[in-house]
């Protein structure tokens, strides 16, 4: 089961890379809902630069990291817009996966570790079994085949109550 989860994650990641790396070039370049609301009262030219009037967006200041090599979803020094946007998207997806996935991986409950008192006490929503009270068998040295067998039998008993 765990291997199949990683397989799914791999496929999903490929989809994300495709979206950020290629499809992103066909995204609308109009200001989004927030920006356009803040531009209300101003006149703008074809490049969405303010040409007159008065609006909240005029107070906007430079980003702290406007000189970042990846600022504004492009890569500094890459001339082709297509490549610049696409590559920055690819970097962003991989970076987000690494940062997010890494943090979540470190935060996770280590159920199969086999130490009894790892019970994650608070069921967050009360709608799923969260008992992680350690395996009843205690003998699964790195067995990847089927995490479901790791689940204590209590889980099954609690299942159909919802």
């Amino acid at each position, binding site marked *: 089961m765990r291997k199949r989860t990683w397989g799914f994650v791999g496929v999903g990641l490929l989809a994300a890379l495709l979206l950020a790396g290629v499809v992103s070039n066909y995204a609308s370049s109009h200001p989004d809902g927030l920006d356009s609301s803040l531009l209300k009262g101003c006149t703008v030219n074809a490049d969405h630069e303010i040409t007159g009037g008065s609006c909240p967006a005029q107070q906007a200041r430079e980003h702290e990291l406007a000189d970042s090599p990846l600022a504004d979803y492009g890569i500094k020094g890459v001339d082709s817009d297509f490549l610049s*946007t696409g590559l920055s998207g690819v970097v962003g997806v991989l970076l987000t996966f690494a940062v997010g996935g890494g943090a979540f991986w470190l935060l996770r409950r280590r159920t199969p570790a086999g130490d009894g008192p790892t019970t994650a006490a608070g069921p967050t929503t009360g709608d799923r079994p969260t008992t992680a009270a350690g395996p009843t068998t205690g003998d699964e040295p790195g067995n990847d085949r089927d995490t479901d067998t790791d689940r204590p039998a209590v889980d099954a008993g609690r*299942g*159909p109550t919802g």
Partner: protein
Amino acid sequence: MQTLAMHISNGIINGPVAAVFGALALAALTFCVLRARADLDDRLAPMAGLVAAFIFAVQMLNFPIFTAGVSGHLLGGALAALLVGPWVGALCVAVVLVVQALVFGDGGVAMLGLNITNMALLGTAAAYLLIALLLRVLPRTRAGLAVTAFVSALVSVVVASQGFVLQYALGGTTDLGGNLAGLAGTMAVAHLLIGIGEGLITATTVLTVAKVRPDLVYALRSRRAAAPAVAVPVAGGVR
């Protein structure tokens, strides 16, 4: 193609208010981390990384809405709440916003607390409350799941947009001459339309995952456990 600042920029909200929301967001995210630990296991952790990466990708895809010259993009709170639950979901959106602010120069670093409050916290919370409600009252079918995803996504976007209006009322740097209602209205209408796009993307994505790997959809867990026709009766295999 070159504009693409999608979140609150520096200077739009004053420093003190931004700082207060920064502290608020930090406290709330800490709470989310504590609650998320109960959900995060060997299966959910990689899935949560994927959800964050996927939201980053789809946020780049600004789509036109029906009013001229305005676009919208996914916020992702409802999608994350459906796939990985509210606590981990809020953290997923926050990770995306942090990466965008620190690496892509999108959304001021000083404004990060404001952006996180609106999109990661308010958006996800509103979405999850609706998800919990709708999954209870709607039929347990793909159509029911689709409607849940669509409605919760749409509403969460409008709620997030009004979070910004509240922040602007507290610390906006331009005197609107008492016309805050105008800003609220403009934001609401634009984000109602964006919410339709958000709803379609969310419903499509969640239905796809539910079809391929229903066990990876957090919001379906309790439902499936409660369903009478579950095939595997032992050892928590239904999950």
